[in-house]
């Protein structure tokens, strides 16, 4: 056994889309310990509830992260609606789920592209992002924005999707599905991909449950936990929902879970579009949250369960807004998965938990 050396990794590193610093303690090119450090992109967004009213804060909430922008505005709105006892129209709930699942499709395809880029498969990366662009075009047509949508408000949504646009979404998604299956084949069956991912960064079921892992990271270690199966909002009307799990617990399993979740999300969107009821898309919300009122909500973001908490103080501004993001949970598992891996595989392990540091630090 060689002498232990500490190698700094990040915060600026080609494989990291966001700043995360790791002190890697290595012995003979094997990582024996990884010490993470975050705090490079803290923006104090939770503090802003003191100066923005509960309607305005939704625009802050969706700027927490660029990939799950819709999910954060959805989770925040749902929490404030619970706080104020607002019943959201059914059509608005369906529309929220359609946009949220579209966000998951684009997030997972983006992640698959980044993973391909990380192991040096440039053309696969480009094909992934080409497909993702079609999802962004749907967003542009239905919400007016590509990344930040501003379509959710407390009490519903601000824009409807008409029947012609819904039919167009189905048509585009069918096109994506055809191309995506070929891309998925490359990810799951290509030897050059499997050589880099199979058996790398293993996390056992016990570790995943003990460390409270969430999202695709946990599901790849056979933890069947998905907030969507709780049936919150329009998810309750799904005919059938089973979380996608895999027992392998390595980088390949995490990639496989995400790859299959894209197809699952497309199926959810198609079912939602087929069953969407007509009616109002929003209700008027008057007044302020009561002093001392509390509400909490969980939403399955593309990276896993995100928990929201809000407390009112009788004014238009909330007393406290708190969110616990999936990456803050998953960092502990990432450190565990890094133990014992080769130095050259560190980037794959970090990438396969899909860290979102902007969400985590807010």
């Amino acid at each position, binding site marked *: 056994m060689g002498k232990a050396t500490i190698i700094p990794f990040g915060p600026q590193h080609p494989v990291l889309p966001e700043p995360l610093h790791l002190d890697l303690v290595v012995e003979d090119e094997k990582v024996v310990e990884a010490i993470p450090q975050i705090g490079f992109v803290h923006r104090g967004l939770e503090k802003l509830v003191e100066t923005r009213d509960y309607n*305005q804060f939704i*625009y802050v909430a969706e*700027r927490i992260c660029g990939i799950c922008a819709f999910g954060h505005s959805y989770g925040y709105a749902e929490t404030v609606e619970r706080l104020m006892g607002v019943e959201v129209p059914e059509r608005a709930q369906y529309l929220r789920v359609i946009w949220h699942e579209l966000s998951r499709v684009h997030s997972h395809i983006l992640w698959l592209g980044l993973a391909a880029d990380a192991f040096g498969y440039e*053309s696969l990366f480009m*094909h992934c992002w080409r497909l993702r662009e079609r999802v962004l075009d749907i967003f542009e047509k239905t919400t*007016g924005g590509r990344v930040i949508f*501003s379509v959710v408000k407390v009490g519903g949504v601000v824009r409807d999707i008409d029947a012609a646009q819904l039919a167009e979404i189905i048509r585009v998604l069918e096109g994506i599905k055809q191309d995506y299956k*070929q891309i998925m084949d490359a990810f799951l*069956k*290509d030897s050059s991909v499997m050589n880099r991912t199979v058996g790398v960064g293993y996390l056992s079921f016990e570790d995943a449950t003990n460390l409270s892992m969430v999202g695709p990271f946990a599901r790849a270690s056979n933890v069947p936990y998905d907030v969507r199966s709780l049936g919150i909002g329009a998810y309750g009307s799904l005919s059938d929902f089973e979380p996608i799990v895999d027992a392998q617990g390595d980088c390949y399993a995490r990639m496989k879970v995400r790859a299959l979740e894209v197809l699952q999300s497309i199926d959810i969107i198609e079912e939602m579009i087929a069953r969407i009821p007509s009616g109002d898309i929003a209700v008027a919300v008057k007044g302020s949250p009561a002093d001392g009122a509390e509400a909490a909500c969980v939403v399955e973001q593309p990276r896993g369960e995100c928990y929201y908490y809000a407390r009112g103080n009788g004014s238009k501004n909330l007393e406290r807004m708190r969110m616990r993001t999936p990456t803050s949970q998953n960092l502990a598992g990432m450190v565990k998965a890094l133990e014992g891996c080769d130095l050259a595989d560190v980037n794959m392990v970090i990438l396969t938990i899909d860290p979102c540091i902007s969400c985590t630090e807010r």
Partner: protein
Amino acid sequence: MGAFKLGKMTISGLFKQPETVQYPVQTKTPPTGLKGHVTNDVTQCILCGICQKRCPCGAIEVSKPNRTWSINRFRCVQCGSCVRECPKSCLIMEPTYAPCSTAKHVDVFEVPEHHKSEDVIKTSE
């Protein structure tokens, strides 16, 4: 298991139309409802100031004494709150992006006194 799983897609891509456009020679038509930039039809504006109150980032300033409606486009996040809340529907979200700026400035719209003049005087300061 096997190699070149992406070969079919890559080769067939050689015979397809490109998915990108040759910007700036070609441009895509912006979809209806694209959140480009906010403008004010000042002939309808009554300077009520609701847009200023609703704006989450303090980008809009309404001055009744000077009869001006101004917007700081560097602060505006195109959320559309002002457009939705405007009682006279004089605020419009144009589906084109504002042109690039070389200096920070505020767009000031002068609101005519009796809403008769069609002339819109737009200055920058």
